């Protein structure tokens, strides 16, 4: 750990106030949403606690605000702040899961392609190329559409969250695969790999031990930027009404619902989730940008 604080990474981190600020914001977002059940002032999923007569309360600082609901309430009397915290939880959960899924898949395919070479490599990379041609949002929509058509509604609703994670994850893996494959190819031809093979060590353990650390940086950068993309993709799908199930509203769902009230003066129902989403994605993007610059000495 000391090594980390000594490192260039930490140095460049402390140098950039924006990066530090975005790290703090990202931390607040993650902590706030992870601990939503503990921190949120209300439980938006507890139907019994909702009071319809409390609906459409504006934020606390306006004339009709109510201290019980700092950011106001929505059309059902749900506390907007709590809804955002729970919504961010879903958004982040989907974002992280999809990114981890894409990373694992991509790294695996990349290693395999680079390591096995030949036909396997050609086929895997061709698939990645083809998929890269298609924008991820389209792939995600298609996956969702196919699952929606293939499964009965009730089943689909139950697994909708996983469908979204899968759809977004599957649409992002080729980026990882390409990077990892590139590094694998470079490493494969290095002398120590050849030497290790001569003394009878398996190639795969060597690859794992040497390639993985080498690609960790790029993978981390792609992963971080991808997290932002995944959160946006989820929000977009949910906005289009084909994302997470309505019983687990994400920020995108909240924006879609709030959108109905945007023109009628109840702006807080959509503006606050919107701002939360932007701030969250922006902070992740800033972190990713910084990470890329910090890990890429050429850009310094």
């Amino acid at each position, binding site marked *: 750990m000391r090594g980390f604080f000594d490192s260039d990474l930490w140095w460049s981190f402390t140098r950039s106030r924006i990066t530090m600020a975005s790290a703090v914001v990202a931390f607040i977002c993650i902590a706030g949403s992870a601990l939503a059940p503990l921190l949120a002032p209300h439980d938006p999923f507890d*139907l*019994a606690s*909702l009071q*319809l*007569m409390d*609906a*459409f309360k504006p934020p606390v600082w306006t004339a009709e605000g109510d201290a019980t609901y700092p950011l106001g309430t929505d*059309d*059902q*009397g749900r506390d907007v702040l709590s809804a955002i915290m729970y919504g961010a939880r879903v958004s982040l959960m989907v974002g992280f899961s999809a990114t981890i899924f894409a990373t694992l898949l991509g790294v695996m395919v990349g290693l395999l392609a680079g390591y096995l070479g030949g036909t396997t490599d050609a086929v895997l990379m061709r698939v990645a190329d083809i998929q890269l041609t298609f924008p991820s949002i389209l792939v995600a929509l298609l996956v969702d559409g196919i699952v929606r058509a293939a499964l009965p*509604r009730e089943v689909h*609703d139950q697994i909708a969250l996983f469908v979204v994670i899968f759809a977004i994850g599957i649409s992002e893996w080729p980026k990882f695969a390409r990077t990892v494959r590139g590094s694998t190819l470079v490493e494969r031809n290095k002398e120590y790999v050849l030497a290790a093979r001569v003394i009878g060590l398996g190639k795969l353990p060597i690859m794992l031990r040497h390639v993985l650390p080498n690609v960790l940086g790029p993978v981390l950068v792609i992963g971080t930027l991808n997290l932002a993309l995944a959160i946006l993709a989820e929000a977009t799908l949910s906005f289009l009404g084909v994302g997470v199930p*309505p*019983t687990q509203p994400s920020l995108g769902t909240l924006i879609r619902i709030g*959108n*109905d*009230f*945007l*023109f*009628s*003066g*109840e702006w807080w129902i959509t503006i606050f989730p919107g701002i939360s989403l932007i701030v969250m994605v922006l902070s992740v993007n800033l972190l990713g940008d910084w990470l890329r610059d910090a890990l890429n000495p050429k850009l310094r």
Partner: protein
Amino acid sequence: MRIRLFAAVAALCLSFGAEARTVRWSASGDPNTMDPHSQNVGTVTMVLQQVYDALIQRTRTLGLGPGLATRWEQVEPNRWRFHLREGVRFHEGQAFTSDDVVFSITRAKQPTSNFGIYVDTIESAVAVDPLTVDIITRVPDPILPNKIASVFIMSRGWSEANGAARPQNTRQREELHTTRNTNGTGAFRLSLREPDVRTVLTRNADWWGWREEGTGNVTEIVFRPIASDATRIAALLSGEVDFVMDPPLQDLQRLRAAPGVGVLEGPEVRTIFLAMDVARPELLYSDVRGRNPLADLRVRRALYQAIDIQAIQRVTMRGQSLPTGTLFPEQVNGYVREEDVRLPFDAARARALLAEAGYPNGFEITLDCPNNRYINDEQICQAIASMWTRVGIRTRLNAMPLGPFFAKIQREDTSVYLFGWGVPTLDALYSFQSLLASRAGGQQGDGIWNYGGYSNPAMDALINRMRTETGDARQDAIRQALHIFREDVPLIPLHHQMIPWALRTSITIPHMANNQPYFRWAVVN
């Protein structure tokens, strides 16, 4: 020369000023067919009733007035005679005769038609002479004129020539000529149809009705569906659209305040209620095993009394609803004010009733709900779900679009669902027959929308009396049936919908409780 040119320009301007009276009209949904007998849905009718006429037309007060028939009489208990209007021509030039009426009624009776309920009692239609038609019913049908007012008249020659002798079968995914083309006798003709994009109607100068009192000056109607509420309202406010039929309730305040835009308010003949599976021995979507809680009147009353209808009216509906305790609003023939009384909202009483019925800890249930059919349908369901949960009935909300929703309840694959019922015939029988008559053993059309399986012999007997009796005897049957409705809670009534229309102040159009705009009466300034 110059003078002549000037005159020509002036004339052109004048003619424009006099003639270009366009109404740009929008609603959330687009008609899914132009076939007049295929889909009995408001979104289809709202366009087609501009193009097609029926034998009898609705008046501005939703009464019955002459249409393609100038007068009609019940010559025998089972035979109605219609005297047709002379000199009427279809938009494509065919002369209108009794043959077209016979054809149209026969067409509406086809299995692929969705208009069966309007012709259910009809045995046959017979052309007496080119301008007289007899309609023979199987049983005496006192409200036949109310029903026939919903059957549009097509040209036999045109339909048969274009292979559309029977209505388009939407279930079998077929496309007929009538899916996109029309040939009516109405005030407007269809001049452009781009599904989902726009539909343009132009004034039929030859329409027989223009001669009558109080008709308007609209020359062109451009209909564009805009599904997104926000976009639709933005379009109205920015002047791209003149008339929005279904403005979101939350925007009414703002629309009223906006310059040049007004809101026409009025009730709709449509009642929103909750229907329950009262027939199955065990509910499909509940944690109660071995018995059906909803079969117990106490539970139904508990559900009823748990609902704070005033809160829903004030918050969810923003005042745009008329809470009710009965089956239909007062515009409907047979309405009884004394029976229009709600069980009071009383959460404690609801809990007590549940305990009494043997559910001290409540139970779990799934509420099926459409999310794009009635005004704020999903929000109403959310509110009810939370109110029910508060008295111990843990409610899972299952909201879905109209298509899957209807498919689901028509499979009877539901335990509780939100439903709305309009009464196009403006007669009580239509509601009782469709919603509360026993499904088994009844006549055609009985209980076709009774997916909760409610069955009460007393109710069935009263419905049969409504069918045949007239005058006070019939009214008495309706009164008794309404009383049973109130006591037995086969459905939980919520409210009658209000249907505000938003439009530019330069347009006047009568607000109609059947939620149909009649552009023949619209005036554009």
